[in-house]
């Protein structure tokens, strides 16, 4: 009798320990407090594209310390919506630049109060903005052909546009050089454009794998470029992926000084589209969306990881160097509110919370 009691108690204890260990952090609550100048000082800004078509996107603010969410801060502060397809946001100096892709503008707000201070208009399907740190910024645009707009930040005037390849997306600054991945937009490309920020001219076009979509700079000053591969669809009646015409994704390591691609690792699957390459705080570990899950890889690894750390497929992925957590966005049905999940570097889920419609980009502070 006593033996059974001890055994059952042991099991119960074990179970409760396991449950305790698996218990997630309490999901964030909505924040309705009054805004002040420190409300947005530290936290995560998540841009939500909004419904496809004619709806409006939003910017959501997640406060890590208080574990609270403010769903639509631009509307809250400025009493008006942003516009169609809010693609990304970048904080440059004391201002935040919100790229509204389908409204052809970038809304400029004070990064502390989120109050509107101006906008950059006359753009052509802008996607991302990156500053050279010297008062200028570069905006990638899905015009035809793709162009990079060079803008003077103090007066928000467009100085010139530089023709690159189709579908320029994310950018990376290294020294005086701006590296732009050209995804191909609605078609397919395999180039990374290098722009000299002193002359604002296109210096060279580096051939990569098909559809380069994201890039990071590691601790050894190597630029890692993740390519999704070309995806071609067959005709009637299946409309399936034409595996003969499609190509697999690849991960390249570029030495910026020599301009040579030193490592080129190919993925095995032609079906999957790897994207969203990101880097940890120490800049020695890579994370990316493999198309069928989240993968982690050390920069010293010789081969691509075979096992994912998270089995879930995300629309967008980013690494928060402040909290050291990975953020993944799940748009669910692309019509209603999506969700954001947080994981530690080992792929253990921390929590998740409701975001806006099609959460796509993360800015960490």
């Amino acid at each position, binding site marked *: 009798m006593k033996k059974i009691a001890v055994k059952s108690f042991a099991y119960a204890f074990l179970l409760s320990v396991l449950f305790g260990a698996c218990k997630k952090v309490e999901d964030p609550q909505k924040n309705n407090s009054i805004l002040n100048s420190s409300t947005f000082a530290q936290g995560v800004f998540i841009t939500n594209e909004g419904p496809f078509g*004619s709806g409006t996107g939003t910017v959501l603010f997640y406060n890590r310390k208080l574990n609270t969410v403010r769903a639509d801060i631009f509307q809250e502060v400025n009493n008006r919506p942003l516009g169609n397809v809010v693609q990304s946001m970048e904080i440059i100096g004391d201002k935040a630049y919100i790229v509204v892709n389908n409204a052809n503008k970038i809304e400029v707000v004070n990064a502390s109060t989120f109050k509107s201070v101006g906008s950059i*208009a006359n753009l052509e399907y802008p996607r991302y903005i990156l500053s050279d740190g010297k008062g200028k910024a570069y905006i990638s645009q899905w015009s035809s052909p793709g162009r990079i707009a060079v803008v003077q930040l103090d007066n928000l005037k467009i100085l010139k546009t530089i023709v690159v390849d189709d579908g320029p997306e994310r950018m990376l600054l290294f020294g005086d050089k701006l590296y732009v991945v050209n995804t191909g937009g609605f078609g397919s490309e395999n180039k990374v454009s290098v722009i000299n920020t002193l002359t604002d001219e296109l210096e060279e076009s580096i051939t990569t794998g098909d559809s380069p979509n994201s890039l990071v700079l590691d601790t050894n000053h190597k630029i890692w470029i993740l390519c999704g591969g070309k995806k071609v669809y067959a005709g*009637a009646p299946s409309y399936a992926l034409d595996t003969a015409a499609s190509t697999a994704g690849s991960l390249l390591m570029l030495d910026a000084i020599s301009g040579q691609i030193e490592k080129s690792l190919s993925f095995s699957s032609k079906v999957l589209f790897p994207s969203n390459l990101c880097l940890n705080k120490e800049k020695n570990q890579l994370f990316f969306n493999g198309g069928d899950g989240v993968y982690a890889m050390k920069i010293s690894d010789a081969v691509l990881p075979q096992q994912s750390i998270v089995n879930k497929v995300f629309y967008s992925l980013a690494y928060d160097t402040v909290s050291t957590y990975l953020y993944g966005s799940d748009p669910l049905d692309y*019509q209603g509110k999506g969700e954001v999940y947080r994981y530690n570097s080992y792929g253990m889920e921390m929590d998740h919370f409701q975001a806006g419609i099609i959460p796509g980009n993360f800015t960490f502070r």
Partner: protein
Amino acid sequence: MMRLQNIFFFLVFLLCSPFLFGQVKDSVYILPAAEIQAFRSGGFQTGVKTTHIDSVVLSDYHLSSLSVLLNQQSSVFVKSYGTSYAGTSFRGMSAAHTGIYWNDIPLGSPMLGLTDLSLLPVSAGDCIDIRHGGGSAAFGSGNAGGSIHIDSKPEFIKRNKLGIQQSIGSFGAYTGSLYSVNGNERWQSSSKMIFNKSENNFIFTDLFSDGYPKKVLSHAESSRASLIQDFYYRAKNNQTLSLHAWYQGGIRNIPATMSMSMSKASEEEQSMRASAEWKQLFATSGIQLMTAYSYNHLLYRDPTTGIFSDSYYHTTFSKAAYDYAFDERFQLHTGINLTYSSAYVNEYGMKRNQGLVSVYASIQYRIKSGKFKSTLALRRDYAELFTCPMTPFAGLEMVLYKSLGWYANAGRNFRIPTFNDLFWRPGGNPSLKPENGISSEAGFSIDNTKSHQAFTYEMHASGFYSSVQDWIIWLPAGGMVWSPQNMKSVMGRGLEYEGMLAFQRKDFRLHLSGSYAFTLSDNQNKTDLNYGRQLIYVPYENANASIRLEYKGYLFSLHESYTGGRYVSPDHSEILPAYQLLNMSAGKFFVFGNYLLRIGLDVNNLCNTSYQSVQWIPMPGRSYGFKIGIEFN
């Protein structure tokens, strides 16, 4: 102004319990009424609510499009994309669930399954019938919500009429129409030419910029021309031959919505519809043979996204129907329809076609006094690409006391997937099944209009229930590709009320009418996040009220419509608020011998209400129109 509006609205509503639009009949049709009804819906119309808009009311809308007319004069909810597309939402169903017919020719596109109401001129027909509720048994695929019939109605009297009407209005709007109706007891010919154009450069409030500035809508110009010809010949032995042809061409620029910055998109469309029909009546039976052809070409261009979509479709539609009355009580109606559609757009990869054969039969039973009528009908459609369900229908009508009657019906409906659903690359799903569902309705009606008294009224009050399974919805399928699935399940139920009151004495005529619809239409997918939620863009309530006065050639009318709030996101986080619109019209007509001169002034959106029918699409504020018309008999 708002309060006055509300009071007016309420009063008209209270007074006008029964309703029909423009009841006074100007002429007597020589063809027996029963025969017309039978061939219209083949005995499927017993126990079905049909609201009828005839020539008196239509003449006020002679220069308008069908979307304006339905919005103002029916309980059908019209969803308008501003200066471009307009579609119906009948009983909480989508625009694809309303069939639109012109002289029995189906106008829907086999590619989209929709018809753009903003492109249909009211003057294409002499009368419009709105059939509420499930009509697949009568008309085939895609009529789960209801159907709208635009018909030309000949009057076999000796006449030679020539008319010209023109209107100019705000935002550079111009419409001109030239028409001629000629004939005698044996033949009739009606020719119409309509041209309209508009700049559509109205002022709207930009809700996306600091300070909500007022802006002028740009890139919204449109122009269109239509040519319509009807020809009838009635032989001595009760044979009628009808020929109809309608050609239309136009171009319109699609403006940007408020959430986007600019648009360079435009749409060019040409369409042609033609039909030939032969009817022969015998003592107790009748035969109808008809064949029709329609062609449509649509070119959609958007230089900014590089989209260049050139699509066309051809449809031939043939019908053979036979009507036989066994005795005073039993009547049989049977027929066969053949439809063949072919369509092409770059995204199909190749030309696509589909043949469809429909066979149907209905038995109508009525008691001698006519106070009780019932119908049992069955229809089967055979499509090359799918298996269509059998669609039975049962309806009955009963006179309870004098002019008070009761009716009920129930039936099955279906809708075949469109060519876009099946073949669009990427994403098209060739293994889609047809949607199917049931609809049912019961109601009361009071109608003394046939008594030809000075004071007439008509009222309908009904409740309906319908459901659709395997509703086709486009969902993300991985990557950037969307693909349609038979995923959705919808249940619609509600109440409809229409009333009309008319009084006529010597030179004075008064018309009051109103309608109210309460609709619940929700997502019935148990696994869906939004299970049980009202569908987007289906208002819980929408209502209309009109008053029309005629005295010694002077005409004055006021029209008010109320559209309830609508959800614009499936999880109900965003709502478009309810709004009311008030329109006013005043005019006079003069008769000089054989000449009839008509002048009129319209004020639309009298209260300059700022509203949205579709989220973020600018809508015009107050606008004016002046029209003048001359008719020579």
